[in-house]
């Protein structure tokens, strides 16, 4: 995932949406990859949105207060509207 983000960003993309609706579990390395991606798009004045996070995945974000750093949307459509 980390590499994918890097490839996207290097190709000039600065608006990213991550669909987490199929993610059941996120560990520290996943979290680190997302934060690192966020840092990079922010430096390019872009945005990184998370979509459809399940409750236990959300727990992890809340635990680290990262839920305030990322922007969450219920669906991809909602996210696209906001970008």
């Amino acid at each position: 995932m980390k590499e994918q983000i890097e490839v996207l960003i290097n190709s000039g993309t600065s608006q990213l949406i991550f669909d987490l609706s199929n993610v059941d579990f996120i560990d520290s390395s996943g979290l680190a990859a997302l934060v690192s991606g966020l840092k990079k798009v922010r430096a390019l004045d872009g945005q990184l949105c998370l979509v459809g996070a399940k409750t236990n995945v959300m727990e992890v974000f809340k635990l680290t207060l990262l839920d305030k750093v990322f922007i969450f949307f219920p669906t991809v459509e909602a996210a696209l509207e906001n970008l």
Partner: protein
Amino acid sequence: MTTLGLAVSERLEYKRTWRGFGSPLALFGFRLLALTTVIIGFRYLFWRYTSSLNLDALWIAIPMILAETFSFISASLFALNLWRPRIRTTPKQIQQFSVDVFITVYNEPPEIVRKTAEAAVRMHYPHRTYILDDGRSSEIRALTEELDIGYISREDNRHAKAGNINNALRETTGDLILYLDADQIPSPRILLRVLGYFEDPRVAFVQTPQDFYNVPKNDPFGNDADLFYGPIQQGKDGWGAAFLCGTNVVLRREALIQMGLIYYVKDMQAALKKTLRNAARSARSAAKALKADTGLETMVPAKEILQRVQATIREGQQGLRKGLALEQVISITESAGDGLSRLIDALAQSRNDLLTILADLEEMSDLAQTPVEPRQARASRHRIERNLLPAIKRQERTIRELQEAAEQVRLVINIEETPMATISVTEDLATSVRLHALGWKSIFHREVLARGLAPEDLDATLKQRLRWAQGTIQVMTRDNPIFKRGLSMGQRLQYFTTMYSYFYGFVAFIYLLSPSLYLLTGIAPVAAYSNDFFYKLIPYLILNQLMFIYATRGLSTLRGQQYQVALFPLWLKAFASVYFEKNLKFVVTPKTRQRGIYLHLIKPQLFISLLTIVGIAFGVATLLSGATVDRISTITNIFWGGLNFWMLSAIIRGAIWAPAHKESPSRETRFTSLRRANTFTGGSSYASLNRRNGGRHSRYPIIGVAQRTHSTVDERAD
């Protein structure tokens, strides 16, 4: 050549091996003398405890009486040691054993090794000679090729000499093994003389004396070992406790391998138990760290790994309890170790992730011009710092614990069978204890059948003595024969005696200090140097000395006694080092003389000597001045101080000793002539032994012909 040979053989003829007491009557005489000494000694000590403690100076009176008690017990142990000495006669020769010869080498000069190896090749009786080279030297390897003998070396020097031998045991097959230190030149007859003992299948080893061809006439460093390789070992042999002494000894492979296996299993089980317990503990604390209220658990994929590890550890522990095959427990433990490593990786990974997140958030909040609200990134960062950093720290601690547990597993998995015990820097004593505990028998054969080099300077002497002392104390602390199952009372007593003797350092210190203390301050450890005191003390001292002289007639024991006292700082140091240092080094005794003056090595002795001289001078001055003093006490203490100074003088002379050049012919010449002489002494001493056994004369095989005569009889069978 002839003249020189003669001169040396004269010296050797003078060289005595102990012949026991000579007759049952003489033995009876010794026992009577010993009993009287002990009784008189007990009476004296009783009186000292009950009526002559100096109550005004208990700080010295109590150490003194303890020292005297120690000496009394020493004397009693000496009497017991020699209570029933065993003088063995050479058994008939036998043929059925294959023999390997191990020459252990660790950087000794090649010319010394060559002498030993050449003599080993020349020994009678078919055998294979190997050099076990821990120095991994090309010169030694070339030497073995030249002499067409085996060369065995290994990658590391783990466990020093014991490890070296254990390695060679794996690569050889002989039934019996002769151990030779690099400098110990064997007589051609050594195998012929001792192999017969192995006809008794319970005999594990036959020890022969160590003797030195380079000890100068006055033995400046007290190296002469005649007392030990005479009455002491023969006395121990009488109790079934002849000690293994590491060189000039033939061992039965079967005994070593059996012992190695048994201890391997024992040690392994104990080590596995401990390792699994530690692994379980570290896994528990990892679980606790994961469960901690930070919710870390949900972020770390370690949970599953951890559960599997804990299950594996439980399986291993149950296996041990239920007597599962050792290899299976080992392999379970190994996979628990792998699990621990995976767990460590997972934890380390999550720790690094968290640190990365922290760094990224920090960077983000520093980018002031970006549209992100720095406040939120900072809030998150603070939360992570507050909540997660302690967890990370805890994790780091857990990781360290897990790493230790995993390392322990790795070490345990790699434990090897060690036929020669490796728990002590004196592997021979430790091995000896274990063989005896398994019911193996040992034999001391008193004939000198190999000659080697004694340390040639004080430094080397002190190093060797220190290692012996440390090793003995190590055995005492790690595998104490007093409490070890399988040993007979006699064997326990004999091992105890040897260990006990090393406590003498404390005692000597008190004896050495006492006279100058009195002469300079007037403080005495006894209530009064009264007539009563002398009437009780003097007979005890005389009897004590008589007993010793009676038992060691014809042996040079003087220098040894002096060094026993003078080495007191060394004995104390040995105790201190065993208790305070974890890993003692096996210090190889240097075989070549380093020139120099060694006064710096004996500062405590010099200090006490000086103090004693000052005390004596002061005492003499007060006597002459006519001041009112207790004349008897002063004279007694002057005499005592003089005796102490004389005891210490040996080591002071040793420290400044240098060989007179014309007195020492080259090693080679001396040795060749000595070997001729050796044949002669060996013969003569055995002839006398046979006389005592009823006039049967035997001739001694000069060449390896298997026509051995008389059967073994011990004149004092148990």
